Structures are given as C-alpha cells and as structure tokens.
C-alpha cells in the first residue's frame, strides 16, 4: 500500500504542478513510513516541503496554499498527532466554502496513518475518524488495499472538497495486490461488497476488513454466510449498499478499531435503524476498540480481531 500511495502522489504531481506535498520529514527521508520517498528527489524543495514541527501550522499553511490555487497534500505523521491541527481542520478547512458562500473553497487532502497493530502504543495507534465525520464539510476516506488506496487517493485529490485520507498502517506493507501503473480513480462514496452472503452483513474498513473477512470465513463453517462490506469512503457513506445488504440479511455488525462509544459504528447502527428498521431481525452489533486509550502491551486484546468478531456473528445470526 505504501508503494501504491507513493505512485498516486507521484502520478498526480507529474500531471498537475499545483500539487504540493508538505509535512514533517516528508522530504529527503520520505516520511516516517517512506510513503513520500523519492518525491523530493523528483520534485524538489518547493513541492515536497519539510516543515517545522507544528501540525496546526502545516494544515493552516496548506489552507493558504489552497486559497492561492495550489493543491496541498499535508501529511500528519500519525493520526494521533492530528489534534494540534484540530482547530484548523474543524473551524477553518471544513467551513471555508460554506462561510464564503462558495467563493473560497480550500481543497486540501490530509493524509495520516491510522490504527493499531504495529506495537505503536497509545499515541501511535489511534483511529479518530468519527471526530471528523461529525464535522460537516469534510470527507473521510480509508482504503483497505493497494489498488483501492491509489484509486481513492487520486479521486480524493481531484474531488473539490477537503478530504481526510486515513491510511491503515497495519497493512501499509502487509496488504498486497496488483496496482496498475497508469491512471485510474475509484469514486468516493462507493463501498465494495467484498464477500457476498445472505445471513449477516458485516461492515468494516481499513485493516479491520481482513479481520472481518477472516471471521466471515470461519462463520461460514458454521453455516453462516456473511456479506462483508468495505466502506472505503467513510463519509459521505454509501448508504445504498449498506441498506441493500441489510434488507437482504436483516442482521448487521459494524467493526472498527476506534473506541466504541460515539464511534462511527454508532452512526451506522443509527442509519440502519432509520433506513431498514423493519427488516432487522437481530440487534445491530458493534465490535470495536474498547472505551480506553490504546494499550501498548495488549494491543491484540484491544483490536476487534476475528476472534472477537466471530462470536458476534454467531450471536447476531441467532444460531
């Protein structure tokens, strides 16, 4: 996935000289996870900018660049470090188009690695997507495969709205797959049914998609066929795909790494209630991170791995 994202950035920077990458250590060393490796060599200091240590400054300056007409793609080293930029994202970036009556949109794509599974501990493992989904004016994307990562990133860069592009670091190198060299985009707002099934709908994204699939595979040994949906775009979410699936299965489970309470799973459950309540045959379930900070030593207890998803599937299936 690292390579696919790097591809997408390089491709877009070649195609459009307004595209600029900025952040801490994105230049010569190519970022903590080497996602921007080689870009500095190819595009130089003024399009691949190593910044001072200030996430607020990075996003704030990116907004200015966007106003000027550039297409800035700031990197936040870990999503856990996005909070110093929270005000600029929430109060400024998300609201500029609206406040200015459409005159001053600020097109920025913020990239940040999310999630656990690399023994990063408390401050290198968080998944803050729900905080941004709650804020009107932002789009939120989270790919689960190299192919999707490239296609979704190209789409995110070309989309007129600000996008938070969360990269699941657990599968930065683990997730493999063919990635075409050339240009392609995957539309934002369109989920993928990655495993068809008729008993239980399992909604996941990012690194947890693989856990959902693994649990679904195991459940099928008990005769429960899960339909697994990879959201890809978290917001605006592909409600049609979700509702169509739940209408078929009558049962739904949402899986995410973030703490359960007020996580995006809550919204998905509430939406399913609103759109498909009378089709529901069992209580929608959530298999999520705990309502605690992210523990270093016990991250495999914390994450909603297949071994925690499977019992939820069995229980939801009601067998």
């Amino acid at each position: 996935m690292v390579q696919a994202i790097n591809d997408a950035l390089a491709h877009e920077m070649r195609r459009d000289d307004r595209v600029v990458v900025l952040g801490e250590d994105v230049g010569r060393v190519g970022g903590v996870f080497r996602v921007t490796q080689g870009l500095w060599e190819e595009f130089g200091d003024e399009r691949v900018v190593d910044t001072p240590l200030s996430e607020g400054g990075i996003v704030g300056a990116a907004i200015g660049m966007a106003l000027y007409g550039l297409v800035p793609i700031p990197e936040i080293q870990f999503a856990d470090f996005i909070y110093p930029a929270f005000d600029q994202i929430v109060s400024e970036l998300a609201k500029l188009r609206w406040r200015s009556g459409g005159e001053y949109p600020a097109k920025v794509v913020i990239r940040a690695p999310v999630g656990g599974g690399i023994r990063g501990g408390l401050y290198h493992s968080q998944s803050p997507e729900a905080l941004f989904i709650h804020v009107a004016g932002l789009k939120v994307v989270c790919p689960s495969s190299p192919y999707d990562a490239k296609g979704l990133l190209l789409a995110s860069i070309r989309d007129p709205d600000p996008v938070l592009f969360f990269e699941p670091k657990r599968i930065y190198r683990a997730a493999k797959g063919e990635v075409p060299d050339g240009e392609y985009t995957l539309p934002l707002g369109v989920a993928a049914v990655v495993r068809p099934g008729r008993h239980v709908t399992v909604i996941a994204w990012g690194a947890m998609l693989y856990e959902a699939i693994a649990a679904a595979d195991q459940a099928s040994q008990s005769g429960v066929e899960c339909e697994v949906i990879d959201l890809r775009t978290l917001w605006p979410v592909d409600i049609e795909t979700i509702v169509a699936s739940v209408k078929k299965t009558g049962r739904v489970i949402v899986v995410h790494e973030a703490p359960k309470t007020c996580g995006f799973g809550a919204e998905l459950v509430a939406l399913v209630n609103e759109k498909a309540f009378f089709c529901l045959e069992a209580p929608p379930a959530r298999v999520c991170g705990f309502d605690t900070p992210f523990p270093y030593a016990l991250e495999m207890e914390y994450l909603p791995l297949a071994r925690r998803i499977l019992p939820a599937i069995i229980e939801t299936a009601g067998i």
Partner: protein
Amino acid sequence: MLISRVPMPSAAWPGPPQVGALREDGTVDPARAEGIPDELAVALYEQMVLSRETDAHLVALQRQGRITHHASAAGEEAAIVGAAAGVRDEDWMFLASREFAAALWRGMPLGALVHHALGTARGPGRGRDTYAPPFWKPARVVSASPLSATQIPHAAGVAWSARARREDVAALVFFGEGATSSADFHAGLNFAGVTRAPLIAVCRNNGWATSLPSDRQTASDGFAVKAVAYGVRAVRVDGGDVIAVLAVVREARARAAAGEGCTLIEAVVPPRPDSGDVSSSPADPIARMRRHLEGRGLWSDDRDARLRDEVHADVRRAIAEADAEPSSPTPDFTDDVYASLPWHLREQRQAMAPRDPAAGG
C-alpha cells in the same frame, strides 16, 4: 550556591523604537518620509472618515439588537487604512474582526458589508455568519473566523505559495495584540520565517484584548519584538499615524519583493481618551490626518462637512437597502457545505422543504 558568576543575560530585550511620520502640527517629519501625493493623502483621509461613520452606524444597529456583534475600528483607522494602502492590488489581504475598512479600500462596496452585517441572503456570506468582515474575492480579501489568529497561517501559506511560484505577490494579515498569544500566530510567523515568505503581519496593539491589558497578555516589551523568535523583521509604528503605517507597510512590501521575507509590524494604537470618544482626542488619527491635509492646503471645513454628509448618506442608504431585504433568506444553508449536495444533506434539505416557498411545498 556552589557555582556562581555564570553570566546570565538580561531578560530585558527592548523592542524596536516606534516609527512615526506625522507631527503634532500636521507636518511630516522629512527625515521619516518624503510625503505622499495629494490624491492619496485625501483618499486616506476620506477612507478613515468612511470607516468611522460606518462604525457608528453598525454600533448603533448592535445597540438596537439588530445585529449581534460589531467590532468597532474607531481609533484604529490609521493602522487599518494605512496598511491596506501600503500593499499592492495583486496582494492578498487577510482580515481579523475590525478591518472592514481595508476591504472597502480594496473596492468592496459598502452595501456588501452592510448586507453581511445584517445577515441577509445577498451578503457575501449569504447570512451564514456575520462576525468578521465579509470575504471579498474580487480583491483577494479573505475574512477570518472569530477564532483569533487562525488567519495568520493561511496568510503565510498564500505568501509561501507566491514565493514558491516566483510571483511577486504578498500577503497582508491583520490581527490584534491578543492574538499573538495563540498557537496560530506562533505557527504562522514561524512558517513565514523559515520559508522567507512575503508576509506582512500587522498587529494592531490597541492595548486590550477585551478586558486584558496588553502588558498581561505577554511579558515581552511590546509585540514587534516577538519577531525575534522567528528571525523576521520587527517594526513598531505609531498606529495613529496613517502616513507612517503606510510607509512601513510599503517598506515591508518592497523587502518582500526583494526576497527578504516577512515583517512583523506592531501598530501601536493611541489609547482611548477617558471620555471613550476617540473623535474628541487630539490623538485621534482622523484629526491628525486632517491637520496634515489642512497644512498642505488640501482641506477645509467646508470640504470636511461635505465629505461627512456624503459618507453619512452613503452609509444610511446602504443600511436602508439591506433592510429592505428579507432578513431570513431561503433555507440554503445546506448548500456549500460540500461542492455538491451529498445524499444525507439532500435528505435533510428535503425534510425542511415544506418551509421553503421556492420548493413550492
């Protein structure tokens, strides 16, 4: 103490001396400035008067409860108009709460400001917010959210972009001295410093952040001196002296063009007289400029009365027009959240459609 006599540098770093141009008697210090052409001198004065008059009306509307909030620029016109006049047409301008006159200087019609303040659908912000002055895109004027200082990194980003693109364009950003305590002042100035961005940062030091006196905002000697922390140029100027402000901003603009980067300008606004009424003070920036114009033979009581009548009429007309506008525009606030309406906002909009006459509901 076992070890002593390690010399400890002093904490007292004095800020730069204050630059002025206009003297008490209305003449301009020739050592400081060579003067400005007649038209410009008159235009600066007129613009300051327009600002003062507009303020008076908007403050009155606020007192009447017709608008929630208006941040008056009374007494600060020289800092605002002088700075706006010191940059070039192609430059960007980022406003804080009080700088509507800078936008007027750049050609924003008075009507746009008043529509905005009253929250009508025809204001540039379409009634969505009214706090700061409106956006005015035709002249690259960008309004700030009320969150103090958030506009500073934006301005730094614009300035940095211009430099990276090798375009001779600068960004002028305004803020109050209180805003210097915020995260975004720090980030914005530091980014401008390291990128040598053509940023002209004008800090209006009016002595107060709401109830906090400026010497409790920070322990530094004034605010210009904070430039030291960012390796950018520091200037302190008499913010009641429109010619001096214009001069230092022009100088900063010229340095920006020469690739010398950012300047932080502290415009020290004269303290309000005890009466609270700025106009009654000889330190009033408008009174000072008028003495100058009179000294140059450019102004008379008669002309002044005419100007004030005109301005008064203009402001009243603008308010009357905005007043005629329905105060509640069509419920379009689901627009412009995104470039196009996503499904959830389409649903939410439909749910309120019955209240929307345009939808025929």
